[in-house]
């Protein structure tokens, strides 16, 4: 096993700061992995392609159904697509955007996301404006 000693000679203070930084850097990543175990949302936990979901977003704003282009410009993702991490990441994205729009006193839309995780039965997620 390799040792933790540094090879290049650097000032002791800088050495100490770097070691603390590196320690915190790795601790944060491990915390991210542990946190992801207790959360549906999977960010910062090194889990690419651990769950594949197909989804379809439907948004109604004042009785007008948003087009694919409008959904793309509103959320930055396609109205129909595939999520390669957790489908809850998509829900979180939609929630974040709508929360911001709500703060700006914009009209809250009615949103439904139809999704299927790992080829299983279709589910529906409904946006809660409250």
């Amino acid at each position: 096993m390799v040792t933790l000693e540094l090879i290049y000679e650097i000032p002791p203070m800088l050495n100490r700061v770097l070691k603390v930084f590196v320690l915190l850097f790795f601790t944060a990543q491990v915390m991210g992995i542990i946190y992801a175990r207790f959360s549906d949302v999977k960010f910062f936990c090194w889990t690419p392609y651990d769950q594949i979901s197909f989804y379809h977003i439907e948004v109604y704003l004042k009785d007008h159904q948003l087009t694919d282009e409008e959904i793309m410009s509103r959320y930055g993702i396609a109205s129909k697509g595939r999520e390669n991490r957790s489908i809850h990441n998509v829900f979180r994205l939609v929630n974040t955007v709508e929360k911001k729009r709500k703060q700006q006193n914009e009209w809250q839309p009615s949103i439904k996301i139809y999704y299927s995780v790992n080829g299983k039965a279709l589910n529906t997620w409904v946006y809660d404006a409250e």
Partner: protein
Amino acid sequence: MMLNRGHQFNLPMYESHIALLLLIFSIFFKTKFFYGTYPFAPFIDFFWIFEPGVGYRILLGGITFLCCLGIVFRKMNRIACFILGLIILWIILSNQLFYSTNNLLLACLFILLGVYRGNDLIFRIQLSILYFGSSISKILETDWRNGTYFNNFITQVYDLSLINILLDFISVFWVALFFSWFVIGIEISLCVLVLFRRFTFASRLIALVFHGGMLIISGGELSVPYFYILMCAFLLLQSKIEGKVNEDAQSWFDFFIDYFKTLRIHFLKLWKGTYFQNNTSYIYIYYFFALIYIIYFRFIN
């Protein structure tokens, strides 16, 4: 072991090459990181305050540009890597759409290159954490343990013609189960192996075959950036730590001139089979493969 006092601001030559390889790739595949982006659906609400700021975008783009110059011209490239890594992390945190494992890994590698002081343990721990996170999530997921994930993966998500040949002989259930546990096994092995210097070659080889295999089988979907960035991370692992002396005095230009002068020696080494004993002696091969890889996946495929 020889000590060097001149490495405060510059990375050693070999690591500088890897930083440059990462940067070249990022310029072609991660273009959005280089002209600054507005925050959009950030992970932390704090980032909304930069939303309408043109100045913010110019500042971010300007610092990124200076970092690129530092890495390209090997001037204070250690600091340039560190700042560039932080900027990429900042951009990810300010925009959920930019979150991806390969973007995060890119940021981590640049940051670690910035704090690198000659011991590759930091890269080993980074890779170990990566495979730990990846394997633990699969083991705890029922769909992975019983093969449901791979069943869907093979039959619904990708047209995996290579695996479909197997399906003529074995039922999809067993193929899916085998691949699920094969992937989990490889990831657990890599999580442990990368920590040991004596297994450097073995872990590199396993990673190359495993991720390269996935890349080929999925037709580049799994995944062009991830494979490249991960291979760069594996190249940062050293089979032995050598004292690196007076490298700061050598510029990129001197380095390449020396290389052309000793081209004959390289051919001789290649002929005698001793070529792969020294890290920096086969750096051209990395550039060659990187070039082919980038041209193919960016402009042809």
